């Protein structure tokens, strides 16, 4: 297995706020890594650093050169265009000819069940439909490294289930590496092979998913233990 992403002593600072502090992380191809932690712990910042959206204040970020990435954000913002073109734009921006992008986009819409809404304005979709559309765009790019920033946290329970089902299908059908943040520990159990616990911008636990949830963490990783206790009750 080869490393798709390596972070060495990465720190990110916004004015006086330290969003990430000395983070070390290596992800192998095909790994599915979940980032967990309280709000403000640095999950989203780490995802943005991995995706090249943020410059680091210190440290090194290495991403495999043959990697094609796609990121799905917590709140998808819809461009003023049709559902179909929203996906086509994404492909076109990645250099795909318009006609080919059109065909690929239709496939992606079928996959998320939005093919009948292809000509509708993307902005008129519900929150759940918009997130499915964002998934369709990411899926259409056929990435081998997928980043998801709390993909279901802004959705109602029904939409959450629907998006989760699509995510599970996607994960089952692809060899792509996955790096995602989530507050939903059930989702983490279902999708991840490895869990990273962050607190105040530091990695305080980095464990296989079984160990994270089943091993007593009280002594080895007291902060993660407290977090789990708080989340699981």
């Amino acid at each position, binding site marked *: 297995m080869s490393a798709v992403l390596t972070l060495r002593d990465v720190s990110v600072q916004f004015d006086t706020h330290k969003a990430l502090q000395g983070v070390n992380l290596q992800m192998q191809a095909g790994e599915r890594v979940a980032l967990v932690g309280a709000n403000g712990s640095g999950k989203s910042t780490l995802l*943005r650093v991995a*995706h090249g*959206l943020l410059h680091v204040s210190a440290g090194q970020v290495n991403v495999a050169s043959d990697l094609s*990435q*796609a*990121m799905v*954000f917590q709140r*998808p*913002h819809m*461009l*003023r*265009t049709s559902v179909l073109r929203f996906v086509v*734009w*994404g492909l076109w*921006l*990645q250099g795909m000819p318009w006609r080919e992008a059109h065909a690929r986009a239709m496939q992606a819409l079928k996959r998320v069940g939005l093919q009948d809404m292809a000509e509708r*304005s993307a*902005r*008129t979709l519900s929150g759940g439909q918009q997130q499915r559309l964002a998934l369709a765009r990411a899926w259409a790019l056929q990435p081998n490294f997928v980043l998801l920033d709390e993909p279901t946290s802004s959705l109602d329970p029904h939409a959450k289930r629907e998006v989760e089902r699509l995510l599970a299908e996607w994960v089952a059908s692809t060899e792509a590496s996955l790096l995602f943040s989530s507050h939903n520990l059930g989702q983490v159990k279902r999708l991840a092979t490895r869990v990273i616990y962050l607190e105040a911008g530091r990695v305080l636990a980095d464990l296989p998913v079984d160990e994270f949830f089943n091993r007593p963490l009280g002594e080895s990783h007291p902060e993660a233990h407290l977090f789990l206790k708080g989340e699981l009750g």
Partner: protein
Amino acid sequence: MTTFTDTAFTALQLLTQLDPLLWSIVGRSLWVSVLATAMACSLGVVLGAWLGVARFAGRDALLTVLNTLLALPSVVVGLLVYLLLSRTGPLGSLGWLFSLKAMVLAQTVLVLPVVTALTRQCVEDAERNHGEQLQSLGAKPWLRSVLLAWDERYALLTVLIAAFGRAISEVGAVMVVGGNIEGFTRVMTTAIALETSKGDLPLALALGLVLMAVVLLLNVLISALRRWRQRIDGAGADPVQGVLV
């Protein structure tokens, strides 16, 4: 009261009888302002869209200057353009002073900051919402500025209408560089000022009514545009709602 009613009656007569002097002034005004708005929008939308996305040292200072220019008095613009076009000025060789070209140039300079600043605001708001996603898809700043300006096209139409409103209703700049020459550079606003001072109130009032009608029409257009957009897009606020015309 008699003066007022008589004036209003004569003004309406001038309008309904298609008085050639009145309508030639109206036509000239529209031509100058349409041309100035088109030129200001061509440059201002590009500049504003770029400013909405680009980040560089000195950007904040540039935006402060730009926002200050929004309040630039039109007579000052007239004076600057006058100095540029006067015989000893840098553009004196063009021989544009006291011509429609000079008036178009003055209105363009006046309206350019309005178009640039409002476009910048629209595109910057859009960048806040969509920038990260477009960046994630590989769009560089220049491409993002084009895409976001296109995405905000209806808001930018509102900017265009607002810019036209500012151009057609100003008086100082065109008065200074055009000279208010009858049959040549006289436009609605300069004619109203002159006719009022001469005491020819009916013509001034008739021109005032046309000017008000133009501004009213622009506001109706803005409202219609906004309603149409909301019908197409569902909800969604207009970033330049309440633009002054």
